[in-house]
């Protein structure tokens, strides 16, 4: 006890400290080492700060390029927002999984596979559309559960496990479709179905009345028949907003969200305090497979057909959007808003390059540079979040 008291700074200790010109520490006193963090600093410390800055920069830069008028028109905006929304759906699910410390490379193949399931059940088995959609989601749950189970049971890197799924699912899509139909595409899925309204859920619009009214007022461009070019807000955007709100709410406001961060932050520690890490990860793998299936539904209803190659490389786009949005590749850190911002940048720049007439090949260069910058910025922001302690 005595040694301790001496160390803790008893009267004697204070005296000694005074001799060396060290002010004794007083508990409860204001700690002069802590600079007050201003609102700007706190804002910049948010994981999605880089993405928000990037989006603003892109919006400004493209405004000065040729073709800006078309890009910023209602129609142009709706096009890039739709593109971003479709990516945002899978990016959001991918972000949750990455925050939990895992990857799913089978997302793109799952998009193709889900389309095939819808196509075959509707065309070959005579299911109504909703039956096809439910079948696809059921398959997605099994695929996601399987991916997750193998990852948590074998403790193999999910990168490898889902790389295998990427090939297996793509191969199955092509193989099954060719065996059954003799082709690699399934056309006319929507023809003669008993429930065309199911297609509307994924491919319709909302606020059609509002847009028609705005058209009649001359506020937005209309076709010769008086109907607006943009008939309303596409359902893909509605779905993306819905998915993002639910995912964001889960991540920041629920116990499950706390477990997601913990599973990716340090799975062993999380397990030790009783977090069911395996269950969290499996559920999130199911989440990415279901997000892929939702996107497949939107695309199938839009095109009226399924293509076995659909969704190719989408897994990377989803991961890229999440990373651009400040999600840490090593897990444990990131937000849903970030992933959505990442998807917005992705869609905007892709359409921007298209509208400005720049050779679209350059989009890939931009993408590569963007990834590199994003990862560097993420590292920096992470160090900021930890108050520099883990920098280097």
């Amino acid at each position, binding site marked *: 006890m005595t040694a*301790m008291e001496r160390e803790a700074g008893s009267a004697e200790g204070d005296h000694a400290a005074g001799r060396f010109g060290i002010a004794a520490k007083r508990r409860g006193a204001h700690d002069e080492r802590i600079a007050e963090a201003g609102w700007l600093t706190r804002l910049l410390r948010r994981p999605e700060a880089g993405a928000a800055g990037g989006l603003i920069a892109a919006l400004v830069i493209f405004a000065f390029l040729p073709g800006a008028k078309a890009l910023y028109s209602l129609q142009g905006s709706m096009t890039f927002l739709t593109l971003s929304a479709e990516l945002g759906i899978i990016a959001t699910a991918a972000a949750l999984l990455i925050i939990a410390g895992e990857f799913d490379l089978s997302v793109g193949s799952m998009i193709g596979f889900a389309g095939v399931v819808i196509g075959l059940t509707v065309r070959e088995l005579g299911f109504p559309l909703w039956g096809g959609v439910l079948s696809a989601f059921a398959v997605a749950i099994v695929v996601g559960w399987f991916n997750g189970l193998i990852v948590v049971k074998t403790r193999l890197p999910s990168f490898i496990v889902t790389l295998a799924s990427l090939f297996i699912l793509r191969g199955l899509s092509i193989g099954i479709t060719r065996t059954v139909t003799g082709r690699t595409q399934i056309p006319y899925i929507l023809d003669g179905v008993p429930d065309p309204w199911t297609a509307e859920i994924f491919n319709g619009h909302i606020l059609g009345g509002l847009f028609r009214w705005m058209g009649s007022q001359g506020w937005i461009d209309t076709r010769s028949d008086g109907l607006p070019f943009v008939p309303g807000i596409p359902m893909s955007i509605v779905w993306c907003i819905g998915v993002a709100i639910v995912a964001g709410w889960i991540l920041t406001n629920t116990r499950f969200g706390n477990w997601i961060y913990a599973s990716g932050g340090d799975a062993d520690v999380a397990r030790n305090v009783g977090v069911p890490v395996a269950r969290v990860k499996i559920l999130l793998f199911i989440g990415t497979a279901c997000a892929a299936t939702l996107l497949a539904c939107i695309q199938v209803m839009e095109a009226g057909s399924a293509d076995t190659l659909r969704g190719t490389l989408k897994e990377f786009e989803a991961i890229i959007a999440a990373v651009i949005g400040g999600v840490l590749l090593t897990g444990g850190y990131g937000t849903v808003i970030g992933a959505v911002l990442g998807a917005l940048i992705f869609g905007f720049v892709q359409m921007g390059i298209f509208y400005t007439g720049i050779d679209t090949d350059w989009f890939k260069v931009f993408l590569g540079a963007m990834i590199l910058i994003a990862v560097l910025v993420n590292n920096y922001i992470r160090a900021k979040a930890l108050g520099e302690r883990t920098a280097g």
Partner: protein
Amino acid sequence: MTEVPAIELKGVSKHFGSVIALRDIDIKVHPGEVHCLLGDNGAGKSTLIKILSGVHRPTHGQILVDGVPVSFRSPRDAAEYGVATVFQDLGMIPLMSISRNFFLGREPLKGIFPFTRFDKEKANTVSRQAMADIGIDIRDPTQAVGTLSGGERQSVAIARAIHFGAKVLILDEPTSALGVHQAAMVLKFVIEARLRGLAVIFISHNIHHAYPVGDVFTLLNRGRRAGTFRKSEITRDEVVAIMSGGEDLKAVEAEIDALLASIHQNEAARPSA
């Protein structure tokens, strides 16, 4: 001691394949007592507390809590019995906030299904209060744990254990990475926990940390228990001798001196540039 030990090991062994990390260990820890585990590197201290905290299962032997045989399937299981552990590698997630770490696995909830949510306000106020109770004033419970100093992190872990009603508090080298002031702070929490009637198991290689707070000292040597002593039965110097693995420290010092002398000699012999 007639009272029932808060936790007791009876004839516990632990094998890792062909490695016998622990052999036939008997230990009793009573409420309101600090029990120090001493021994050289690799003696089996960490393995012992991993058994006590449910990380490992003993190959042979029994664990008793309040005199009742139990078997821990996981650390969570052990925690249900009131056995809380502050791990050597800390058991905290650096990128998460203090309050999120504090309540990890036991999040307070509010709202009705399906809108049940993590009660962040409560988590913030309670964690701040629990830390204040053991004498730490945290500035901001939403601060990431990774930004805290080593001692502050330990204090969060200890406050968490006390708050969630631990009866047995296990600390594996909680002071090893700490400076003088912070180590003293952690030792203060150890005493605080003891005064609250917790049974504390404490591992340290530092005699200045172990001896002042310890009531009972158990020596481990190559996986075996080489003796248990009450503080009145053993002097600080004897504890030092035990902690150095029975080796004569004087001999080690002489060796180092000889080494230093030869280095100096070499330097003197080298022509100055």
